């Protein structure tokens, strides 16, 4: 199988990488681009832990072929850190105890970031519905929902990002 070169922006940096046609974006991110902030607990679209933002939209990177990501902009949890400062959604996760083992956290953080950008005035029901594509086994979700409801104020522009 002949490889082909693709180019993508990963957390703001342009990266070129040779991929096979049958390789997933998850595989390429982890094993070729060494982007270990992208986790996986099932490799087949069930757990949501490999969620990244592709051109601003959350995708399960195990369900995307790497060739489909050619030319796209990919953001992971690591990419939300600006100048060494956590983003408001990341800070809210820390303060609300919205993580335990932390293995699912990068996925929840990027998904929540996308969700609040689209909907900075959510109801708890909307947050719960949106998060239901992702599995967290430790927290029982309640503190994750609290963190997202709280971080919404930053996305509404009511508070500056770095208080």
């Amino acid at each position, binding site marked *: 199988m002949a490889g082909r070169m693709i180019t993508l922006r990963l957390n703001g940096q342009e990266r070129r990488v040779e991929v096979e046609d049958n390789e997933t974006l998850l595989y390429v991110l982890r*094993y070729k681009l060494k982007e*270990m*902030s*992208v*986790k996986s*607990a*099932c*490799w*087949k679209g*069930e*757990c949501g*832990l490999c969620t990244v933002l592709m051109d601003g939209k959350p995708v399960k990177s195990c369900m995307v072929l790497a060739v489909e990501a050619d030319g796209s902009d990919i953001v*992971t*949890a*690591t990419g*939300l*850190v600006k100048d060494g400062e*956590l983003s408001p959604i*990341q800070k809210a*996760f*820390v*303060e*609300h*105890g919205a*993580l*335990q*083992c*932390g*293995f*699912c*956290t*990068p996925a929840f*953080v990027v998904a929540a970031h996308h969700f609040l950008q689209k909907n900075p005035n959510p109801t*708890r029901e909307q*947050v*719960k*519905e949106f*998060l*239901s*594509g*992702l*599995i*967290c*086994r*430790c*927290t*029982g*979700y*309640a*503190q*994750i*929902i609290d963190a997202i409801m709280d971080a919404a104020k930053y996305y509404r522009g009511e508070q500056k990002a770095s208080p």
Partner: protein
Amino acid sequence: MSKQAFKVLGKPVPPPDSYEKVTGTAPYTFDMELPGMLYAKLVTSTEPHARIKSIDYSKALQVPGVRIVATGKDFPVRIGIYVGDRDMLAIEKALWVGHPVAAVVAESIKAAEKAIDLVEVEYDPLPAVFDVEEALKPDAPLLHPDIANYKISPAFKPVPGTNIANQFRMIKGEGEAGFDKADLVIEKTFKMPFLHHAYMETWNTIAHYKVTGDIEIWTSSQSPYAPRYLMAMSLGVPVGKIKMRIPYVGGGFGGKAGVLIEPLVAMLSKKAGYKPVKLVMSRAEQMRSMPVIAGYKAYAKIGFSKDGKIVAYKVRFLFDTGAFADYTVNVARTAGYACTGVYDMPNVYCESLAIYTNKVPTTAIRGFGYPENHWVLERLMDMAARELRMDPVKIRSINLLRPGDPTSTTGYGSPLRADAGDIQGVLKTSAELIEWDKEPEQPKEPWKIRAKGIAMSLKGPSQPPNAVDAAIVKFNEDASVDILVATGNYGQGTVNALRMIVAEAFDLPLDKVHITWMNSTEWMPYTWQTVGSRSTFTVGQALLRAVEDAKRQIFDIASTVLKVPADQLELADGKVYVKGEPWMSIPLTEIVNGYTFPNGQVLGGPIIGRGIHSPGILSYLDPDTGQALPINPETGHSEPGHATVFYTFGSTAVEVELDLLTGDIKVLKATQVYDIGRLINPLTAKGQAIGGLIMGMSRALYEELIFDDSGGVANPNFSFYYVARAKDIPDDIRIKFLETPQADGPFGARGFSENVMIAVIPAIANAIERATGVSITELPMTHERVWRAIKEQRPDLIEKALKAFQEWKNASQG
């Protein structure tokens, strides 16, 4: 209880590693790679029980990049924490569909994946057994005919020549004869299914067997010492040669306790020419081939007097351990010795068997026998309340254990200490939180019913009597402290709680107390294991002794320098003071590496404090009577022995909504109360309580491993093994902690992070039975199972609901 003033304890402190976790920069074994690392994949059995005639891997070796293929012949050893029955790759016989029979090691995952399909295994099928009661029959196929030759811990008693991996019996009072005094007897059969822990990071290990004979391991395990010891014993390697390193771990829930795949990967590394090898389980491999959670069938009988007092209890647990009982023998034993739950019972007869079948093996689990035995007992309590027309809170209240009363004992004959916790207060608070006396507001859809249910729980760590712990505190030049403990940190918040305990004890600000993410046998002192909700209690005590030890050394130096006796000194704000004369002080920075006089002479050296915890009050339980063996009087303790170092009392109450047309149960409200002795960190304590609540709810309503006709796991994925998602959780969750300090706990604290998932399971079923009279005794309470139970027991409810639904539909259309 007067509130002590604390500087650090009781504050909501996020664990410091949260920052790495939210940015995705925390390294898990899953993320780690070593130079020259190779990848392993497993070939698994397609037969439930078979002699392996031959394994031909010549084609696999021809796949480019493949280095070696190993089979059970390469390492024919057995391993296990309590019963050494596990092989690393099938030895002669395959025992279930999914049993690893060979391993391929290659330069890439892709090459290894390609090669496993080319390994040809020829089987000679044997009769298989998939059901515990079938497995007990005299002519049942035997999974482990050589069990008498396995390494077995002294607390366990397999029955050679049968499929019984352990037999535990407990008799208290007159045992079964106690039923003669009963006015009411209830007999029921209960079931729990096999389950998957569903930690998000699957088992994965990197091992590097070196030419020097040293073995370096990086692994996703709960704790380093017990697996290292077990590995050394089974492989015949000196234990000190093994360096067990544990980075961040993506969840455990008991499923990463004991020894995992470390010995296998180490031997693969050796066979592959002393190269580092990594083995990562896929989710399907994890659920089909690696240990899961045992299911059981239980026959229970309980007798009450007219006035609601329990007079006798009999229960027989038949735990299905699958093909290896390794850790499950102790889950089964624990379900047995703690079968009496929070209640005082004069007469008890309990038998708990761990039984082999040709199914996926099983291991430890959060709760460790307690969710199992509470599902039986807490359901029976509600059934009795119904029969006796008593309130479920009242019938519990009059039967609760009485801490401090020597006549009120556990099933194994030990009274609870007076400061074990406010058991009545837990029940009372639980009832208050759920507003027990207020009828739930009924939904506007008349085919749905809302109801409240309640259950109690107790949980103690099920550890061997000789499980000991050590802790070290050492100082940095800036008088900040490093904590060295081998306690695992896989999300429970324990290590952060230990940091808070040390900061409080040293009177240092939290940012002056450091913990590290990498746990290792090379620099962390011995801790048996991080399991059983034990570490805050046991390692916390070891740390407080280490702090005292360090303080003694500090005061020794300061006493010479300040020319006052050591007992007149105190440590606060990073300084050593003379009591009552705060102007007489030395900064700690000038002592931690010895005090240097103006003439350059030094007094003392680096301050390093050490402390231990030794549970001297524990003893084995007699496997035939379940009674604790007497304690050696020369140790200063008095008889009888105990099975645990503490018990924590808890209660969960729920308000649920049942859809009579679909059998769908939704938990609308849940309240939890635990007497944890001392609330160290409200943020993470709340996190444990909620996390456990939802895990318990998930177990109650959704989770079940399903087996196909050949005993293989048919749903090894998250599509068909459903775990609770965000949309399933109740919006109204109320948590309350009571604080009755236990004198030997660190600042009075007891552990509780398993207790949080126990009572919710029976509480949900109790609510359903209270509202409908429909009795559910088998888990999970899926739509279908619940609907069938209503149809069978109360068909009138479904008819009424259907009529109401039709009327509502007609009305809304009209």
